[in-house]
């Protein structure tokens, strides 16, 4: 029998299975990055394809279908993802935090998929497609996907996965059953992380807002020293050399989205500490946060600016210039000058 890879997926799994025959042909798994949406989708796909006559609550793990699936070559299974996605990582949910920039799922990919869906199945009739992340479909692809999604041939099942479901076309959303996955209980997440030999699970969970897979990645990331150096500089705005820091960050060859994420979390913590006395992401930086937090309110405008930058961060802009702009923005904000660079 194949088991669920993560303990916190038990409940959502049973919620899914409970539906039995009522399980719709189009599901949309939503939730924060790094909580195992993709693992759950894979498990469901295997379950649907499993040919064991006595399967009840789990895929058997032994039949031909299960073996093919686990080997990654079941003929009735498709994984639709951006061409340059990092296939190696099991938790590609978290690709936002990873180095690789994800590209789009284009209209041609969707048309290829339509062929797969419309051809008759090789085995029992069930064909499962996972689309991850669903928001990677560009508008043309999403539109092309609509009809397939609404009236698919018998036996076709789609599982869409999205960290940012609001970016999906409303027409896509309304054709899917939305299945939200929440952040797991900290206790469960911590126990699991400890089992993965993560040294300070609580801390890494905090860094990722409670998402355990992202936390495991956080604990093992090569860029940890870069982040520490970065946060140190943020804590000492009086001596911050913007040009130098931006150049250093560029040299680290990290995704702008990742650095923005650090900065967003830092700014969030400063504001939250200053205004409500709570640190969310960086409890290990409490002293530093307290030094800056008396100016919490000055950073509110800057926080919106960061949101905007996050929306644009996927565009291929000159990273160093982008970072310089952000860091100057941070200093200006702390000085009470919301000058936009």
């Amino acid at each position, binding site marked *: 029998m194949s088991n669920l890879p993560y303990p916190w997926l038990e409940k959502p799994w049973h919620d899914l299975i*409970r539906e039995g*025959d*009522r*399980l*719709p*042909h189009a599901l949309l798994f939503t939730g924060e990055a790094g909580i195992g949406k993709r693992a759950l989708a894979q498990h469901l796909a295997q379950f649907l394809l499993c040919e064991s006559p006595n399967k009840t609550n789990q895929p058997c793990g032994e039949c031909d279908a299960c073996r093919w699936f686990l080997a990654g070559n079941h003929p009735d299974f498709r994984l639709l993802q951006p061409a340059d996605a990092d296939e190696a990582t099991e938790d590609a949910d978290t690709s936002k935090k990873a180095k690789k920039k994800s590209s789009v799922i284009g209209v041609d990919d*969707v*048309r290829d998929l*339509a062929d797969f869906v419309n051809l008759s199945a090789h085995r029992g009739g069930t064909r499962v497609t996972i689309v991850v992340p669903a928001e990677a479909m560009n508008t043309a692809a999403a*539109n*092309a*996907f*609509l*009809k*397939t999604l609404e*009236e698919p041939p*018998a*036996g076709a*099942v789609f599982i869409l996965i999205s960290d940012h479901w609001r*970016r999906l076309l409303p*027409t896509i959303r*309304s054709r*899917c*059953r939305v299945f*939200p996955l929440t952040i797991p209980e900290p206790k469960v997440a911590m126990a699991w992380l400890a089992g993965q030999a993560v040294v300070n699970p609580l801390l890494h969970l905090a860094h990722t*807002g409670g*998402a355990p897979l992202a936390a495991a990645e956080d604990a093992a990331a090569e860029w940890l020293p870069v982040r520490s150096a970065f946060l140190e500089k943020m804590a000492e705005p009086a001596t911050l050399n913007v040009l130098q820091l931006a150049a250093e960050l560029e040299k680290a060859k990290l995704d702008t989205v990742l650095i923005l*994420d650090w900065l*967003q*979390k830092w700014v969030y913590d400063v504001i*939250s*500490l*200053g*205004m*409500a*006395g*709570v640190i*969310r992401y960086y409890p290990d930086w*409490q002293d530093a946060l*307290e*030094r800056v*937090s*008396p*100016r*919490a309110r*000055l950073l*509110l*405008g*800057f*926080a*919106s*600016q960061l949101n*905007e930058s996050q929306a644009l961060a996927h565009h291929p802009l000159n990273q160093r210039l982008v970072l310089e702009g952000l860091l100057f*923005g941070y200093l200006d904000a702390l*000085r*009470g*000058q*919301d*000058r*936009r660079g």
Partner: protein
Amino acid sequence: MAYQVLARKWRPKTFAQLVGQEHVIKALANAFASERLHHAYLLTGTRGVGKTTIARIMAKALNCETGITAEPCGVCSACTQIDAGRFVDLLEIDAASNTGIDNIREVLDNAQYSPTAGRFKVYIIDEVHMLSKSAFNAMLKTLEEPPSHVKFILATTDPQKVPITVLSRCLQFSLRQMTPQQVTGHLHKVLAAEEIVFEPLALNLLGHAANGSMRDALSLLDQAIAHGAGQVEEAGVRAMLGAVDQSYLFDLLDALAAHDGPRLLQTADAIASRGLSYEAALHELANVLHQVALTQAVPNALADDLPQRGQILAAAQALSAEDTQLYYQIALHGRRDLPLAPDEYAGFTMTLLRMLAFAPAKPEQISGNVSPAKPAQISEKASPAQTTASAAPSPAAPTNNVSTSTQSAPVQSGATALGKPEQATQTIPAREPIQAATPKTESAPTYDDLEPPPWHSEAAEAIYQASEPAPQSVAEPAASVIESTPSASPVRENKPAESFNGDWRGLVVQLKLGAAGMLAQNAELLGYSDIHFDLQVAEEHRAVATRDYQDKLRSALSEHFGRDITVNVNIGAIAGETPAIMLVRENAARQEVAVAAIQNDPFIQTLVCDMGGTIDAASIKPL
């Protein structure tokens, strides 16, 4: 996967089964009954209102073997084949995906050949505005000289993108969004037929959540049935929708009124622990704020049987009209920005903290009397909550009416004691004295004799100073910025203007709109004539484009110009600026100037450095 989703199973097969499009159905049915046929029809409307469904019924009405009819039999081979999606003379093209048919152009070119099985060759083209140019041309060729055996049924969510050459050749029907009541009524019927147990209140919730789309409603119903293991109960549906227990929302407003940051976050945590959606929470918070504002403007506006009536009335008392408006705007922006935050919790709580920051501050909070939150002191005590305990001010009773007298605020006396009176009086960011100075310098009418407009955001809020482009004028001295601000000089003339010069914002301040002012403030003027105004409202402000507000606006305009004026309100992207956007931008600029002036003030600098005091940018009002 034998289960067929309800949206598919319950797709109406006759005109009679359709819900909520009576006006269109009647016209169509009459036309078919009397065989007055057009060769091209265009169905418009938002998603899920039934465009494709109606198109398919029309195809049956045209091809039913009983004759052209408003009541296709449903049993003849044409009807059954159309229902099953395999009628040779019905070509369904989804222009959005171009799926199903390899070469649309070729297919359309073939329109000239007679039908094989039916009376008419029917082309249903969904999302027709997305056809390629060559496909449009092929269609136009046929539309210009239509063979008698060809019928086009076009459907689109975006008729403005359909070429006028095509539009002009179509008989157009616009489908309405269904009301929650219509949706609820239909769900009722479906459940009765499916023999599924339900609680009526659960259906009300679904009816509202569906946003006028029957397809969405049926998908949600499917979900609710699964969620409730075969029955549909209110509590279950509430949980499934992530619908927030309203009491949380009032807790949030309470915490805001009490200026209590920690409590604000505790309430947010409580919402999270219940697994509720922050998206929904912000949406509902905006709704509640809207009701609060309505109550402030029109005290009897609330229905007597509204469950939260008491709480809304209390909130209307506790919050100033100005803050209510501000919170509403912040909630809307916060919802938009939710996916851009590190995670939803952060996006949600940041929105709440923004509200907190822009709430009125007591002068002593900003002045030297601040209980100095000394960093050293905090870092010794690990509990960060202490920070707030000392810094959080008690709620200041917000005053809307700005008196013209210059009050001597505690700030000033403090400053004098420190020996720098001139600078202090100019720049200290105390709310009251500076506001008081404003009307004086402009010698404009004060606000207190104006009826306080419910959505008046004058006092607002560089809520999003960073999200609005900073205008060039930032570098200018504060005074000149203010002079160039039209909103700073409210016009109070009653004599109707004969003609309109295109200054929408200038016009809006002259209209007596009450709550409908919200519509006007958030509308962009697209075009106008002597008797007509075309307005555009962004999707995010859809809530203010109600029929009531539109009517109010129309009558206000008619009254103002002394003639009948029609108003058309579109929902769509704003390309230019609405009065609300202009105001936010201007205030952002003013805020920047004011903040910069204060920050550059050596006295304030000393205060900040020596005493660990903080400058509260939010409370700084422009001079």
